């Protein structure tokens, strides 16, 4: 993904001894993977919440946030206690971190005036919304990437698995994301050699189940718990539906 940190880890200078018993290497590596995956939503959040920051400055702040904040002051422990709310916790942490940094910069007569920045700050909701939208994009793109990989390289003898992905792509993805017409039923059954409507439906249902299983796994990597994962899916659904509705009204005002 463009703009993602290029080093093999975003925590290259980790002082494991200094972390002491607070964090173990596994926890930090897991966090490293998550921050890398969700780097783009963090950057989008920074850009929309603090529009006066230049791109380079924002990138430096983000890197500092990852290195200085996430590994220190018990952040990881607090994040672990709030796994179900990881997304919100990360967002709040970044905002507070940047405000704190800018505050200190102001004291030290920094080139960017805090007063000016604060005056220009949009409503917190705007940045939060952009962050959540970008987060949903990353979650779903990662889900699709894994689903495609899984279907194209299935374990064991599953000769129709790649067709399952193709059916999902033709039936759902291309109409949704490329404005393509849905491939008609008769073309689908000819293309995939489907013997009956039950077989066709089962293949499509199977694709949806594979999608759901990967979606759950992607989200579970930051929520950790089954009930928190279900809750996070529900929250993302509600958020996207609310945003879609509002944008539709905005595009076609009464």
């Amino acid at each position, binding site marked *: 993904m463009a703009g993602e940190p290029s080093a093999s880890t975003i925590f290259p200078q980790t002082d494991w001894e200094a972390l002491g018993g607070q964090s173990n290497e596994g926890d930090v590596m897991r966090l490293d993977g998550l921050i890398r995956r969700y780097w783009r939503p963090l950057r989008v959040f920074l850009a929309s919440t603090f529009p006066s920051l230049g791109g380079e400055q924002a990138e430096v702040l983000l890197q500092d946030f990852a290195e200085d904040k996430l590994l220190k002051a018990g952040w990881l422990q607090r994040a672990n206690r709030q796994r179900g709310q990881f997304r919100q916790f990360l967002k709040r942490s970044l905002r507070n971190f940047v405000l704190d940094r800018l505050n200190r910069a102001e004291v030290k007569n920094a080139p960017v005036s805090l007063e000016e920045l604060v005056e220009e700050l949009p409503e917190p909701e705007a940045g939060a919304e952009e962050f959540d939208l970008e987060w*949903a994009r990353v979650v779903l793109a990662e889900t699709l990437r894994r689903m495609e990989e899984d279907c194209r390289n299935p374990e064991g003898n599953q000769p129709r698995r790649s067709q399952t992905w193709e059916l999902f792509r033709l039936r759902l993805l291309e109409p*949704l994301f490329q404005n393509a017409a849905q491939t008609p039923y008769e073309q689908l059954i000819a293309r995939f*050699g489907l013997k009956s409507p*039950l077989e*066709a439906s089962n293949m499509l249902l199977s694709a949806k189940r594979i999608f759901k299983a990967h979606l759950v796994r992607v989200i579970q990597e930051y929520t950790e718990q089954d009930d928190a994962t279900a809750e996070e899916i529900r929250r993302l*659904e509600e958020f996207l539906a609310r*945003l*879609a509705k509002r944008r539709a009204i905005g595009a076609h005002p009464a």
Partner: protein
Amino acid sequence: MIPHDRADAPDLLCPIMPDFNSATKLSLSGPEPLAALLAAGEAPSGLWRPEEMAAIFRHQMAALLEADLGGLTPPAARRLEAMAAAQGAPARSFADLLRHPSPPLELLEMVKDFAKTNADHPENGLPKEIAAVLYYACIAAALLRLKARISKLPDADLGRGLRWAAAQPWLDEETKQLLARALAGITGAEARDASGL
């Protein structure tokens, strides 16, 4: 013409497509398609569009009985063989059964049960409307061709079901006639009962 057995040829029919490139496709996407995708893993309803029902029903009628019934019992398989031999041509599809002048009762009951299971459990994937029409078509074929009743539904309920099935706009003419004639038989009997004849 709907293919019966092309499972061995999908690679020719379906060459590997280029990667979807999910990150690129989704990176500029608005919330609406994302919401629709997120919902894709939820309830299995709405797999197919209403305007696809005609094609799905045609496919169902052309499908092999063995494919959907998950292996026939030996007596049912023998009856199917006999039916095929009597017709002088391979006769193994749902359409063959429903249009046969003397269909095996056991097979009609099996298909009726298959249809009922699918109508009662939409999570199985077969559209409920297709399953329900198939259910009533089996009852109609038994009534008309074998003078047999394979349903415990009272006449009034059966009449309502047959009427509903015959009215489906995506139904082929032959099945519509089968249902309408069975309905006429039922309502005729109801009229005779009502008049005490």
